[in-house]
C-alpha cells in the first residue's frame, strides 16, 4: 500500500512517501473488532502465515509464513476467528520502502542514505496502515523478540487502539551484551570491502561476507548451548576424522553456521541489517522516564500476555519479568508464561505444546470478541 503523506521520524528526518507491504488472513468482522496485528523481528516479513502457490496452483516449497506454527485456521491465533495483518516494516527488504529502493528526492537508490528508523517509527507507520484499512482498534498486537518491542510500543503510543498485547521472548530494552552482539554483526558488514559505505548497489556488488558473519553470530545467540550440543556436539563433517586444517570445515557446527550465513546473504539486505539492529539498540521506553519502566508503562492500558523461554539468553526471562513487574506496579491485567523449552531464543518460532496452548487459551478466553 502506498502512503503519499510524509512520515515524520523520531530522528527529526522524514520519509517523503513510502510503501508498506502487508498480507491479511481471515475476515474483518462487521464491527471491525477482530483485527490482530503481527509485528516481525529482525529478518522476517509481512508473510506471517500460509503458503504461496506457483502459477500451476502448486504449493511453493518452503513458502510457509514465518509464524505459520502460530497463525492460521484452527491455530492458536485462529484466522477463522481473527483478521490477522502482517506488515513489513520500513527499512526492511521484503517490499516495504527500504534502502534498496529509489529515493524520490535524488532518483538514486537510498543505500546508506535511508533514514534511521526506530521501533516507534515503525509503529507510527503501522498505525497509518490500520487507518487505511479502516481499523480503529486492534483486538491484539503481537510479536516476538523485536516484534514484541513493537507490540509494547503500540500500547504506549496508541493505548486506546490496543485491547491486548502479546509480547513473546522480548525485553524492555537491550542489555550491553546484546548491543555488543549487534555491533559485532554491524562491523562485519561495514568492514566488508564490498560494502562501499552502504552504496554497494552502485558498484554492482553485495557485502555478502559481512552478512554471512553477521548471521553466523546471530545464529549462535538464538540457540542454547544445550541444543547446539544436542544437534551438533563435536560431530565432524568428515567421518574419516580430522584433517588438521585451520581453514576447512571440520565440525558440523561450522558447516551449519556457514550454510545459514550463505543462505541469509543471498536474500537479506546489508543496510537493512544495520537499520534493524540499530532500532533494537535504541528501543528503551523507560529512557525518557529516568530508567523507570513502571512510570513508562503507566500509559499502557492494554491487557498483556507475556511469554518467555527459560533457555533464551538473548532475551532472558528476567527481562520479560521486568515488564511484568512494571505492569503489576500499574495494576494492569497481565498474564505471564515462562516456558521451560530447550531451544533458546529460537523457541518463540517453534511449535511447543505448552507455548501454543497458552497463546491459544489467551486468544480464546480473553481476546475473542
Amino acid at each position: 500500500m502506498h502512503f503519499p503523506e510524509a512520515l515524520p521520524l523520531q530522528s527529526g528526518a522524514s520519509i517523503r512517501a513510502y510503501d508498506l507491504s502487508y498480507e491479511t488472513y481471515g475476515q474483518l468482522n462487521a464491527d471491525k473488532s477482530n483485527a490482530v496485528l503481527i509485528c516481525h523481528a529482525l529478518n522476517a516479513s509481512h508473510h506471517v502465515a500460509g503458503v504461496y502457490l506457483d502459477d500451476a496452483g502448486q504449493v511453493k516449497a518452503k513458502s510457509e509464513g514465518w509464524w505459520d506454527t502460530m497463525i492460521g485456521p484452527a491455530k492458536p491465533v485462529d484466522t477463522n476467528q481473527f483478521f490477522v495483518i502482517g506488515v513489513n516494516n520500513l527499512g526492511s527488504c521484503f517490499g516495504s520502502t527500504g534502502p534498496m529502493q529509489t529515493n524520490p528526492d535524488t532518483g538514486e537508490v537510498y543505500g546508506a542514505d535511508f533514514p534511521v528508523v526506530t521501533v516507534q517509527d515503525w509503529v507510527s507507520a503501522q498505525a497509518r496502515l490500520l487507518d487505511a484499512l479502516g481499523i480503529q482498534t486492534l483486538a491484539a498486537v503481537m510479536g516476538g523478540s523485536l516484534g514484541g518491542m513493537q507490540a509494547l510500543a503500540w500500547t504506549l503510543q496508541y493505548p486506546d487502539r490496543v485491547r491486548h498485547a502479546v509480547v513473546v521472548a522480548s525485553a524492555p530494552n537491550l542489555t550491553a551484551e546484546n548491543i555488543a552482539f549487534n555491533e559485532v554483526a554491524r562491523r562485519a558488514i561495514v568492514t566488508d570491502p564490498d560494502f562501499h559505505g552502504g552504496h554497494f548497489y552502485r558498484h554492482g556488488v553485495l557485502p555478502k561476507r559481512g552478512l554471512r558473519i553477521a548471521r553466523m553470530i546471530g545464529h549462535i545467540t538464538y540457540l542454547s548451548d544445550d541444543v547446539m550440543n544436542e544437534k551438533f556436539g563435536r560431530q565432524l563433517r568428515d567421518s574419516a576424522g580430522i584433517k588438521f586444517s585451520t581453514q576447512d570445515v571440520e565440525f558440523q557446527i561450522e558447516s551449519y553456521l556457514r550454510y545459514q550465513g550463505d543462505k541469509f546473504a543471498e536474500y537479506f539486505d546489508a543496510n537493512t541489517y544495520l537499520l534493524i539492529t540499530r532500532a533494537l539498540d535504541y528501543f528503551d521506553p523507560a529512557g525518557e522516564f529516568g530508567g523507570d519502566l513502571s512510570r513508562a508503562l503507566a500509559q499502557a492500558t492494554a491487557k498483556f500476555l507475556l511469554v518467555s523461554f527459560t533457555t533464551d539468553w538473548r532475551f532472558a526471562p528476567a527481562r520479560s519479568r521486568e515488564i511484568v513487574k512494571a505492569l503489576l506496579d500499574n495494576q494492569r491485567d497481565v498474564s505471564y508464561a515462562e516456558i521451560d523449552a530447550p531451544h533458546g531464543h529460537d523457541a518463540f518460532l517453534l511449535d511447543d505444546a505448552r507455548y501454543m496452548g497458552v497463546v491459544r487459551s489467551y486468544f480464546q478466553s480473553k481476546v475473542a470478541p
Partner: protein
Amino acid sequence: MTVLSNVSQPSPDLLSIARLVPRGARVLDLGCGTGELLAHLIKERGCSGYGVELNDANVQACVARGVNVLQLNLEEGLTVFGDHTFDVVLQIDTLQHLRNAEVMLRETARVGRIGIVAFPNFGHWPNRLAVLRGRMPVTKVLPYQWYDTPNIRVGTLQDFEALAVKNRLQVLDRFGLQDGREIRFMPNARASRAVFKVQRA
C-alpha cells in the same frame, strides 16, 4: 501446587475460605492451581488480582479461565510485587510445598494487608492415631505415602500459631475445616485442614 478441588463448582472448603476475602479486594493467590478460587472471587465477590503458579498445565488452565496468572517460582521470592500492593494474599495448600515457607509467610505479610493461609492440619486426630500406631497417616487431605509426598512441611494449627507469633503476625481468625464445615471448637484435633487469617502486628 495442588488445589482443593478440580470440579467446576468450588468445594465447600474453598467457599469457606472465599468468605474470608472482603468484597472487591485486590487479591494475590500464591500457588493458585487452575485458578478456581480466583475465578470465584472475581465473579462472585467482585475481586481482582493475580494468581502465581509454577505448573505449566495449571498456568494454561488459569489463562483459559480468563484469570491473570504469573508463572513464577515461589522459592525465588515475591520480588515482582511491591509492598502492601494487595488487600489479601492467599496461600491455599501452598505452604506445605515450600522450602522457604517462613520467608514466604513474611513476604505474604509484606505484599498484602491480610494473609489467608490454609494447609493440611497434621494435628487432626486420625493423623495422631496413625502415628501412635507407628505409621505415617494417609488420608483424604494427606493422601500420599511418606516416601512420595510432595508435602515437605507438615504442621499443626498450634505450630502455625507459633510461627505467626515468631514473625510478629497478628492472627485475626483461625479455624479448622472438616468436610466443608468450619470447626472452631478444638480445631487442632478435630479438623483435617487449618485456616489462618493474619496481618502484620
